[in-house]
C-alpha cells in the first residue's frame, strides 16, 4: 500500500480513517469508530458530523487506518504474559501493618 493513492484496502471506497475524540479537556482522545473520506481534511469534518452530533467532543484526531501499526494477536503471550508475574509492581503486593497511616 505504500505507494498507493488509496488506503483502507480497496480501490472503490474512499480511504478508511480511524476517529479519536476527546470528550472533555483533561481526558485522553479515545477511539470511537471509523469512516471513509477522500482526504484528511474531509475525514476530520465528517468525523465532526458523524461522531459529535450529541456534543460528544471538544477535539478530534483522525488517522488513516493503514498508518496504524498494531501488535499481532498471535504475539499476545510473548508480549503480555511476562508482565503478569511481576506482582511487585502493584501496591497490593506489599504487606504492611494494618495501622500504618498516610501510605
Amino acid at each position, binding site marked *: 500500500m505504500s505507494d498507493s493513492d488509496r488506503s483502507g484496502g480497496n480501490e472503490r471506497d*474512499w480511504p478508511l480513517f480511524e476517529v479519536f475524540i476527546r470528550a472533555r479537556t483533561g481526558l485522553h482522545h479515545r477511539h470511537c469508530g471509523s469512516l471513509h473520506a477522500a482526504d484528511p481534511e474531509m475525514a476530520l*469534518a*465528517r468525523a465532526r458530523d458523524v461522531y459529535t452530533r450529541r456534543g460528544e467532543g471538544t477535539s478530534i484526531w483522525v488517522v488513516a487506518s493503514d498508518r496504524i501499526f498494531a501488535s499481532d494477536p498471535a504475539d499476545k503471550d510473548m508480549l503480555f504474559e511476562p508482565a503478569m508475574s511481576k506482582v511487585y509492581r502493584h501496591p497490593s503486593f506489599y504487606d504492611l501493618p494494618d495501622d500504618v497511616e498516610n501510605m
Partner: protein
Amino acid sequence: MADALTAAYALRLGDDALILSHRLSEWVGHGPELEEDIALANTALDLLGQARLLLACAGEREGRGRDEDALAYGRDVLDFSNLLLVEQPNGDFAQTMMRQFLFDAYAVALWPRLSASRDEVLAGIAGKAAKEAAYHVEQSAAWVVRMGDGTEESHDRAQAGLDLLWPYAGEIFEADEVEAALAEKGIAVAPSALREHWQARVGPVLEEAGLAPPEGAGVRTGGRQGRHSEHLGHLLAEFQFMQRAYPGARW
C-alpha cells in the same frame, strides 16, 4: 412600526433558512456517500433551528399571535420573502453545493455583523448562526473546489451549477426600505455592506476551483417582495400539505 419592520426582517431571514433547510432535507437518504448524507442532514438541521428561532421572533414582533408553525405553514407564495436562490431545485450534487456555497458566503458575512445588532433577540440568534455558518461555508467551499478541480465531469457539473445560480446571487445585496430603515437604527445589516465580504469569500474559492462566473448573466430578483420562481409553489404544496389538509389539528 419598528416592530413590524423587525418582524419583516426576521421573517425574510427565517424564510431563507426554512426553504434552504427544506431543500437539503430532500437529499437525506439519497446522498452520494453515507458520510455526506449525514453532513447534509446536519446543515439542514442547523438551518431549521435558525428558521424556527427567526420565525418565532417574527411572530412575536408582528403581534398577531402567529407562532413558527402558523408562519411556516400558513402563508402562500406571495407572503414568503426568501431569496430566489434558496428555493431553486437541488439538481445534482454540484448544483446543491454551489447553491449552498453562494448562500453560505452570504450567511458568514451577515451573521457576525448582525450579532452586534441593537435588537438583543436578533443578536442572540445571529451569534448562534454565525458559528454554524462558519462551518457550513468551509464545507461547501471545499466541495466547490473538489468538484471544480476533480474530474472533467465534476468540473463541468460545477460550472453548470454556477452558470445556473449566479444570476440569483445579486439579490442578496439588493436593499429595500425594510433593511434601510432598520440598518439606520443599528438593528439590521445593510445588504450592500455585505457585497465586498461575499466577493472576498467567493472569488478565491472559484479561482481555486477553476470556475468562472458567467458573463452577462443578468440578475434575477423579487423574492424579498414575494415575486418568486415557479419552484416555490411546488415546494410549499408539499411542505404545507398536512396543515392544509387538517387545519387546526395538533401534531
